[in-house]
């Protein structure tokens, strides 16, 4: 029993008295400095790198989709805006009313200001204006699917119809003139 205890005690003492090799502290400090100089380990992980690439690709695709889906019929500049303005408004040089209340514009956060400044720039596409009365009538005609009304929208057919009316009108007056001439004779 004594021998076993003695062996255990000597073994435990051997563990207790273990000494690191000289210079361990210096090597650890150098390793810490080298580790600090490297980029963060999590950035080098394949999963993190793949996630960053995916995020960049997603952001790029979102930008492309946003650009493609911008309305193509939007007037390109202020001159185009005038073409869609109702004639009355153009004639009186009336200012175009903003589409949103002024209070909401002033309530924008500071981080929105660059976007607002871009939106107010001269070359920025103006928002689509409401349709004029004539445009709405044209839409109604087109949506009723009436063949006769739709034919009127065709300029060739309309010109032919107009020429035919003119011919009938002239033919009518030529007949009346001949009758009046024969009665007077």
């Amino acid at each position, binding site marked *: 029993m004594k021998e076993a205890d003695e062996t255990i005690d000597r073994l435990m003492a051997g563990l207790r008295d*273990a*000494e*690191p090799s000289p210079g361990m502290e210096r090597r650890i400090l150098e390793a810490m400095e080298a580790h600090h100089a490297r980029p963060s380990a999590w950035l080098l992980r394949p999963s993190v790198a793949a996630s960053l690439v995916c995020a960049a690709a997603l952001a790029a695709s979102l930008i492309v989709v946003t650009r493609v889906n911008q309305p193509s019929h939007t007037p390109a500049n202020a001159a185009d805006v005038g073409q869609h303005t109702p004639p009355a408004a153009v004639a009186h040089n009336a200012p175009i009313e903003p589409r949103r209340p002024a209070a909401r514009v002033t309530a924008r956060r500071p981080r929105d200001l660059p976007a607002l400044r871009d939106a107010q720039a001269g070359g920025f596409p103006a928002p689509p204006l409401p349709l004029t009365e004539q445009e709405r009538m044209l839409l109604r005609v087109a949506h009723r699917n009436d063949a006769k009304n739709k034919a009127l929208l065709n300029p060739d057919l309309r010109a032919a119809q107009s020429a035919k009316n003119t011919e009938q009108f002239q033919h009518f007056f030529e007949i009346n003139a001949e009758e009046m001439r024969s009665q007077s004779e």
Partner: protein
Amino acid sequence: MALSFMEDARPAVDPAELVEAYSTLLFRIAHSVLRSRTEAEDVVQDVFIRVLEHRLTLSTVRDMRVWLVRIAWNLALDRKRRRRPEQLDENFAKSLASGTIPADAAMEEAQRFEATLREVERLPKAERHVLLLCALEELSTVEIAGVLGRSESAVRGLLSRARARLRERLEGRTHFDERG
């Protein structure tokens, strides 16, 4: 040594001071598990690399000594799982044998230490861990309880059972060897 990497972070606790204060203790903690000087030093280095990664939150650590010992302990156990058991115990047992006795007696002593280490490894895990941490005589029972996540009374009980079981097995082995 200029530690420029510690100046920009301005931590409340200086990692360089921690290296100076705790590296030897952490080495012994890791060495008690691995019984290899090289591997124990690697563990200590890994501990301080982790400290560096958490340097901005070091001031929130309540008991730095227990926190560092727990990291070293867990890293050493993790490293031990990855290597073959008893791979390095032979060398450590030889280093423990006295150099002043004849070679055959030294070899016999080394074999006895090696057998004791094998019996230590055969102990139940909780008993083995308490025995190894207590062997260092640098940690109080409260600190060992904090490292292992047990109560003080549990640590005392485990230590007592570990010593008794180890003694019993070594005596049984001795009787077996004598009969054999």
